[in-house]
């Protein structure tokens, strides 16, 4: 469960202070599927980064699974990231010199899982995402869709509670984009929270709960009605 309570994030751009997030409160229950839409600079990515613990809010609280993450130090936040959060990026962010297998293996290596267990888990992941015949390929030998699948496999290898996807289809053609979204939705069905930032209304409208943001504020939350304030 995720609870954001009056989160503020301010950036200094030159002489101007930009409120990337302005008093944002949000509650996300287990297994929800949320899309966040909004124009560029509306604070979507900042919100995602704060939920992903890559960024710290200047004000407010963020509670993830009953833990107030704003109290955690860097090392502890890294551990929360490692075990509870999976990132999927627009530009995939695969390590170019490593093969598909090694890229997926990375979080397991960071955790210090035994090589035998690593091998088994990566093998299962490769099969789950239809990459079994691509295991020894490097990112530049893979298509965009395949790269994003490797990235998703890597994001989910630690069995996280939340998947944060920042424009996961932004760099893909329609077919592979759709494929990727379907994979993410399938993961969501298994009970993982899926938060998807997108520009594409077609994708945005697939979710049950749609959040639209403008100027660092949540303008509209389709499920907001159900929460009694």
């Amino acid at each position, binding site marked *: 469960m995720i609870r954001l309570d009056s989160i503020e994030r301010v950036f200094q751009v030159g002489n101007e202070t930009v409120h990337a997030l302005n008093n944002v409160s949000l509650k996300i229950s287990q297994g929800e599927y949320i899309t966040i839409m909004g124009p560029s600079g509306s604070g979507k990515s900042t919100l995602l*980064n704060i939920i*992903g613990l*890559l*960024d710290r809010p200047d004000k407010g609280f963020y509670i993830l699974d009953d833990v107030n993450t704003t109290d955690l130090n*860097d*090392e502890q936040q*890294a*551990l*929360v*990231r*490692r*075990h509870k*959060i999976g*990132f999927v*990026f627009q*530009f995939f*962010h695969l*390590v*170019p*010199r*490593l093969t598909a297998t*090694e890229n997926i293996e*990375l*979080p397991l*290596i*960071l*955790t*210090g899982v035994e090589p035998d267990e690593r091998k088994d888990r990566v093998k299962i992941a490769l099969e789950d995402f239809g990459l079994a015949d691509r295991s020894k390929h490097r990112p530049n030998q893979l298509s965009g869709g395949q790269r994003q699948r490797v990235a998703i496999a*890597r994001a989910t290898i*630690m069995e996280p509670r939340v998947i944060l996807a920042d424009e996961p289809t932004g760099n893909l053609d329609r077919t592979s984009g759709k494929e990727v979204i379907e994979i993410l939705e399938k993961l969501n069905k298994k009970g993982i929270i899926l938060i998807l930032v997108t520009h594409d209304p077609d994708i945005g409208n697939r979710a049950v709960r749609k959040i639209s943001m403008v100027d660092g504020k949540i303008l509209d939350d389709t499920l907001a009605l159900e929460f009694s304030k």
Partner: protein
Amino acid sequence: MKAKDILKFSIRASTGYKFRTILILIAMAIGVASVVVLTSLGEGARRYVISQFSSLGTNLLIVLPGRSETTGGPPPLLGATPRDLTLDDAIALNRSSAIRIISPLTVGSAPVSWKQLEREVIILGSTHEIYEIRHLSMSLGKFLPSIDPRRGEALCVLGNKVKKELFTNQSPLGEWVRIGDRRFRVTGILAKKGQSLGFDMSDVVIIPVASAQSLFNTASLFRILVQASSREAIPRAREAILKTIRERHDGEDDITIITQDAILSTFDRILNALTLTVAGIAAISLAVAGILIMNVMLIAVSQRTTEIGLIKALGATRSQIMRLFLAESIILSITGAFLGLIIAFTGVLLLARIFPDFPILISSWAVAAAVGVSLLTGLVFGVFPARRAAKLDPVQALSRR
């Protein structure tokens, strides 16, 4: 994160950027190789000098007339001309148990001629014992016989060069040569030997000390060479010499004693300083290699900014990232050091081939120091880039493509 995985990851990262890796390896290899080779050269020079010195003779003490030190006190009323060392002084030294053998030495220069050929040669007046004390060797005939040093026999031993110039290829044994206004019978020829105690031993003629004294019309000696009975006996021999001469010279300490050890240790100190200087110069090249490592690692950090951001997003802690980059620079410097050692060993082997007389040898401390310092440079100069990597803001790092 397991140590083995850190290692594997760092090695993969090094091999992933070949040009950069080769650059670092070359820098480190040159640094380490120069430290090892230069210190080996220094060590070789030291060994060379020591071996040259010990060829002078072992446990050697040299007695010179005159004082080299003052003791203070009022100036002597009468002029303090030092007493000469005489042959009797020399013979008197023989009584001490700390002294094995002695050999008096008179030096002068006189024309030496045979038939029509004549040339000016340094004449050493000495005794049979100098043969042993100075480790001389003969190429032909015999050295001066062991007789009473007070007896002036008309015998001489020629240096190699003198023999060649006077006799060319003929055998000089038994021939009579004229030295000054006297005639001496040649008993032997010295074997070739380099400089020793400032004399080119191939360009001298050795005659009995008493003959030399009468030839040059003097009663004094140039030096007395003393061989102590053992290395431990050197200080005792020194005391014995001082005491004997003092007794014979009316209580005056008017001689100077040089021990070979003193000369050797002075040279040893000089050469050690030299070796250290050379090693210091070489260490600078290691430092340069270290700075290069730092630069290249900094480039690596900015090259891999997104990668660092990514592994942070995947849950890598700061210390993990720090360890990854440190491991990388250490692996690079160790590999470089290893290559450097290979270069150094082949280089030294080659030098030993080219200059077989020069006792060049790789000293283990130089190897240990070079490898240790390279490890340290890898570590020290790796810290800054690694810290920079660890401190990267993941959001900004990831916003780059």
